[in-house]
């Protein structure tokens, strides 16, 4: 018996209204009604108690079933047919569109309905549910029959064609994970309503191939690569999906197994463990003359050298060895940080990719040391222009289009929203960067900051170790087929063979229950000796990694709880089903640990034992299906030395005319995607949950979308966590060294500008490269890595964590079926995290008062190469900003002193669009006018004395600062106005100060030649740049906010 319950929402329903508006924007007028549909095969689903638990009587009505029963049904409660007539809805409609999930896809609404079903059926017949605790735990009673499946039905009235409904369906559903049904009113009538669909996973147990044996001997190189690229072949002839291993690895496995066969699960495990995604082979391999490889030779070495140099003042506690990096917050706590990418899954299912990304990196935090509490989320998206519709396909016949940039943008934004908001973690920190080469493979960055006591139960909070004899306990969600081959799949370029099973949807509430139980309770009880998360590679990675410290493991794979029966052992082992943590638990604690999880509605199961046998051993119903040396598994991958070449890119500097209308140019740039407001994202992301917000994502009364945030993670302390980041993907078109340097400098400069001391700052590196099997791309990589080594050491800002994603290439076909390869520009994201001793010292970007003085700190050079300005004009140019870390360091130290003395009223670190955009954003943020005079910035003044500066302006009384007029046109190195405004030279900060702080401020910068007063905050509502442009504030405001306001 199947029950289909339909809950009709009122016509005022916000979801319906929003759809109507969307249609209206496309020129269609329609009325939409939303029906929430629940389908279940459980007999109790037909009870009124369940039905009424699903509907709010004020705004929703249960759509009654027509009296017409399914032929042959005698049961009065039979609702099997789900037959409904149009009349049953009490309204008129022309179209019905239903969207539900495909079998096996995580259905969170369905799960909650299932819990309601469990609640209502156990509370019936006079039973007191409170006495019946065990029955309350849905995981304990969940089986195939108790499942509830959700779907949404849209009833639409209006003059619309089927094609309109199909277009609507496409915008609402992703056919990779969802099914859609469209019916006209006539069909609806004929069919007696929508079909009742039960999307149950049906895997037949007899199809399980348990530990298929593979003989690698005598296979040719081509045959080995066929296995690597297509996967192991089932008896039925199907390929299981790529292993993604290079030939040298395949040959090493072949050699190791030359005298015996290898099982499918053994080969899959090696593929997971040796994958680029997990092993980071490109960063680990010898490269040119650097035998240690890029990671040890540069990134890790930088941190080591900085820590030695800083000695007692070292802020690092745990670097590169755990799921996140940890630095000192105060005498009692550490803060941790980790930034991940989830690019490949997000290209196929943007929502699913992003939500699993954010809840996944939350688990990295929960899996740091003995478990850190997630306190802040970060996000970052590199996307193609959402206003364009480029036509690319995954297949030659042009039947599988790539998702549109708009669909990807909306999906990834929604995914982080759902994951972050539902987990109760504030998401104040992020960015969006646009470049059309992100069309096939967007970059989706997600990060989580954690807070953890430095000491837990008398032991250092960041230390953990699985001991031989500890039981392997897995807690959280169940295992399904989702996410199979995620690790190997993200290590290869995206093409038509990319597996749909790699896609998954997160379930933040299951994770929240698990996270609360661990961080807020069990951690304090000291019941586990080690914990880590299940991410890429699932249990094969988490158990494998933890077993490195004990020296081996034994797993009984048949003990793992499954979402549905019928999975093969190798699938269970590498499945990336979400919301699971793996723990090492001393035997005496196992029972109470599992019982406590159960009380919190979380399922936990013993699946094996950590050993010291040196073996990775797995059984399936008692039979050994994997038995490997731990040494071979973790260190058996042969070295693959890499060779690089490098050629600088770029064109000749273009011969551009100075803009005839400077106002228009300023406005054009202000509206560009990389510069305009992304407020619509910030307001969707809960950025003040936990009560910890200090400096948010929208700054000043004019709400400017900011690059830096400050959070107070402990309500009992005034200490703050400062977060920021920097990246300039387009600079790679000229020189990846400049790209990397500018990114690192901005990450540091943003944080410094906000008031953090340089010596309290740490960095994270995320490399998103492309075609990393080509010497030229590797040359670009090596150059970028060398550069950030130099800069980090110079700034004494250690790297504490990092990640790389090396193949961000889309391989597909254009509209004519011609093969195309679109590579994302080589991108380094540098994220910064620092501690500010008192949040009262924090500095935002919004000017505070009329009469305040405006200073530009740092040198402006002729550096428009790869800038927003040149890109706007259709040029790339050659003069990409070069970063002078020596000069910058001098400024940051001086600035730090001024910030400590609270001499800075507002600060903005210049970035995309240079000084012009910084001025505009400051005016918008403050909703105040500005009088600016750039003449003093000309290079001819670089040798002036400080007294001259002081004499040259008297602006605080409201007079025009015109006394600064000096001739600068005579000098060759004078910058033209457009260059001065839009050059993206790094190392610059635009500040405002109170007039009464002028003397102290200038004394602070005495002897520093690039501290120049350029104007003041003015009465009135105009940004006035003397002799260049004058523009109304509301015009600036409108242009800044208009570009993305409809999203």
């Amino acid at each position: 018996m199947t029950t289909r319950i339909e809950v009709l929402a009122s016509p005022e329903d916000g979801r319906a209204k929003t759809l109507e508006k969307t249609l209206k924007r496309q020129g269609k007028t329609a009325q939409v009604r939303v029906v929430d549909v629940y389908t279940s095969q459980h007999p109790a689903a037909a009870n009124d108690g369940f039905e009424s638990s699903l509907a709010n009587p004020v705004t929703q009505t249960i759509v009654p079933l027509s009296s017409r029963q399914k032929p042959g049904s005698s049961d009065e409660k039979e609702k099997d047919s789900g037959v409904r007539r149009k009349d049953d809805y009490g309204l008129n409609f022309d179209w019905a569109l239903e969207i539900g999930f495909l079998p096996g896809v995580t259905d969170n609404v369905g799960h909650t309905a299932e819990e309601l079903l469990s609640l209502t059926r156990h509370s019936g017949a006079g039973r007191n549910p409170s006495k019946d605790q065990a029955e309350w735990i849905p995981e304990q009673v969940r089986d195939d029959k108790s499942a509830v499946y959700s779907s949404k039905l849209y009833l639409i009235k209006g003059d619309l064609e089927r094609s309109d409904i199909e277009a609507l369906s496409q915008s609402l559903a992703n056919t990779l994970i969802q099914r859609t049904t469209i019916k006209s009113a006539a069909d609806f009538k004929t069919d007696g309503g929508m079909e009742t669909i039960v999307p149950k996973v049906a895997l037949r147990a007899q199809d399980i191939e348990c530990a298929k044996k593979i003989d690698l001997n005598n296979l040719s190189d081509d045959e080995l690569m066929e296995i690597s690229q297509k996967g192991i072949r089932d008896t039925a002839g199907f390929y299981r999906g790529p292993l993604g291993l290079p030939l040298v690895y395949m040959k090493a496995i072949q050699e190791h197994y030359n005298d015996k066969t290898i099982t499918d699960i053994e080969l899959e495990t090696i593929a997971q463990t040796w994958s680029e995604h997990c092993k980071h082979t490109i960063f680990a391999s010898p490269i040119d003359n650097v035998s240690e490889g890029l990671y040890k030779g540069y990134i890790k070495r930088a941190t080591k050298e900085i820590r030695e140099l800083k000695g007692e003042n070292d802020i690092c506690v745990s670097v590169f060895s755990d799921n996140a990096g940890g630095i000192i917050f105060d005498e009692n706590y550490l803060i941790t940080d980790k930034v991940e990418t989830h690019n490949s899954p997000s290209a196929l299912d943007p929502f699913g990719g992003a939500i699993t990304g954010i809840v996944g990196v939350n688990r990295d935090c929960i899996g740091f040391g003995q478990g850190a509490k997630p306190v802040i989320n970060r996000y970052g998206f590199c996307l193609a222009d959402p206003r364009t519709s480029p036509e690319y396909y995954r297949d030659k016949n042009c039947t599988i289009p790539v998702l549109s940039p708009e669909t990807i943008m909306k999906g990834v934004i929604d995914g982080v929203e759902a994951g972050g908001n539902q987990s109760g973690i504030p998401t104040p920190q992020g960015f969006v960067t646009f470049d059309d080469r992100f069309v096939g493979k967007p970059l989706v960055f997600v990060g989580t900051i954690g807070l953890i006591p430095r000491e837990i139960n008398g032991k250092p909070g960041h230390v953990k170790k699985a001991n031989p004899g500890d039981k392997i306990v897995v807690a959280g969600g169940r295992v399904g087929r989702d996410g199979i081959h995620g690790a190997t799949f993200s290590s290869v370029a995206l093409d038509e063979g990319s597996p749909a099973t790699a896609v998954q949807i997160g379930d933040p509430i299951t994770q929240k229950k698990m996270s609360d139980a661990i961080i807020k309770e069990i951690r304090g009880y000291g019941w586990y000796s080690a914990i880590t998360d299940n991410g890429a590679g699932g249990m094969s990675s988490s158990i494998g990694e933890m077993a490195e410290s004990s020296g081996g493991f034994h797993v009984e794979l048949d003990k793992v709880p499954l979402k549905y029966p019928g999975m093969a052992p190798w699938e269970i082992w590498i499945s990336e089903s979400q919301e699971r943590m793996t723990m090492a638990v001393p035997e005496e604690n196992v029972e109470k640990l599992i019982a406590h999880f159960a009380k919190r509605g979380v399922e936990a199961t013993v699946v094996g034992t950590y050993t010291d046998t040196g073996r990775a051993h797995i059984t399936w119903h008692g039979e050994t299906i994997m038995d490997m040396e731990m040494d071979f598994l973790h260190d058996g991958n042969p070295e693959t030395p890499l060779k690089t070449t490098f050629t600088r890119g770029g064109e000749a500097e273009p011969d551009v005319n100075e803009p005839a209308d400077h106002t228009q140019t300023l406005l054009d740039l202000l509206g560009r995607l990389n510069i305009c407001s992304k407020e619509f994202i910030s307001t969707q992301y809960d950025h003040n949950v936990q009560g910890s917000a200090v400096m948010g994502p929208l700054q000043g009364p004019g709400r400017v979308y900011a690059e830096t945030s400050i959070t107070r993670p402990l309500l009992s302390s005034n200490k703050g966590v400062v977060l920021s980041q920097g990246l300039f993907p387009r600079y790679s078109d000229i020189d990846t060294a400049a790209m990397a340097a500018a990114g690192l400098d901005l990450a540091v400069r943003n944080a410094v500008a906000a008031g953090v001391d340089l010596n309290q700052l740490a960095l994270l590196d995320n490399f998103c490269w492309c075609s990393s099997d080509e010497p030229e791309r590797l040359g670009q990589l090596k150059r970028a890595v060398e550069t950030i080594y130099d800069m980090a050491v110079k700034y004494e800002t250690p790297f504490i964590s990092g990640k790389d994603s090396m193949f961000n290439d889309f391989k597909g076909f254009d509209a004519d079926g011609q093969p195309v390869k679109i590579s994302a520009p080589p991108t380094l994201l540098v994220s910064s995290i620092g501690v500010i001793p008192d949040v009262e010292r924090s500095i935002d970007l919004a000017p505070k008062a009329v009469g305040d003085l405006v200073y530009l700190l740092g040198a402006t050079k002729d550096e428009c190469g790869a800038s927003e300005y040149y890109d706007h004009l259709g040029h790339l140019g050659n003069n990409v900003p070069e970063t002078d870390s020596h000069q910058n360091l001098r400024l940051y130290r001086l600035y730090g002193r001024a910030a400590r003395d609270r001499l800075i009223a507002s600060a903005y670190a210049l970035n995309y669009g240079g000084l012009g955009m910084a001025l505009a954003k400051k005016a918008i943020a403050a909703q105040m006018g500005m009088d600016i005079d750039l003449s003093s910035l000309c290079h001819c003044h670089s040798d002036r004395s400080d007294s001259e500066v002081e004499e040259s302006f008297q602006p605080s009384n409201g007079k025009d600062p015109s006394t600064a007029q000096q001739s600068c046109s005579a000098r060759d190195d004078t910058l033209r106005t457009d260059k001065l405004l839009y050059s993206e030279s790094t190392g610059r900060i635009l500040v405002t100060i109170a007039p009464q702080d002028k003397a102290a401020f200038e004394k602070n910068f005495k002897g520093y030649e690039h501290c120049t007063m350029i104007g003041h905050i003015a009465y009135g509502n105009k940004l006035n740049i003397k002799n260049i442009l004058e523009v109304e504030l509301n015009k600036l405001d409108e242009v800044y906010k208009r570009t993305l306001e409809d999203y």
Partner: protein
Amino acid sequence: MTAKVLVLAGYGLNCEEETLHGFEHAGLSGQIRHINDLIDSPKELDEIQILAIPGGFSYGDDTGAGNAYAQKLKLALWEPLQKFIARDTLTIGICNGCQILTNLGLNPPTGTPYGDRKIAVTYNETARYQCRWIDLKITSTSPWLNGIERMHIPVAHGEGRFMMSDETLKTLQDNGQIAAQYIKPDDTPANGEFPYNPNGSLNDIAAITDETGRILTIMPHPERGMFTSQRDDYMQIKDTARREGKPLPETTGGMALFHNAAQYFEVAQKKTA
């Protein structure tokens, strides 16, 4: 003896720590309780004076925000809850807690028994989660809101739109049960205008009380606007204070609710003493 607070947790509620912090800062003592633990020992409700259901995302907002958690409370704890609210106690539901209490029917229009759902808190008109600062006009004699006329605190919700029949609205109005309404910064009514009214709520309603005023259901978050450093205009405030050489107050608007709760029981205690 000071009054004891119990803040509920579990199944995706997530503001329990900062909510308890607010009460503690106001001098009250209390504890966070997982709903399953309270179901195990419902007698705890007899020993406390203040019950708070904090914000969060219980059950992921699935089947309607607050609905599933309310169903669970109703099935497992209805009688102890009835006993609790019948005593001279205070109850507050903030954001998700507001949605839960509303789904439980604990803020019914005067004349309707507790438990009857006459009010819904449903999808924002924009059908989009909104996290932003808003202004509230307070017109209520609820002990929670004693002495407060205006508040500047944030909202953060996807389903914060109060909806009800005209009749219910009138009853609420006639009996002073509309506790807070969204206004514009210039103190004029928001009149449904976004973003001042962030969710399209009927009559700009942001909070409702039961007829005693002791149960407050409020969508905005006082606990996120109780310290000056939490405010969206903190940077401006601290800059002004520094220029004027004035000290920066530690607390702000939202803290008044927690102080009022403490005050309520202090006064009651004095009366009995």
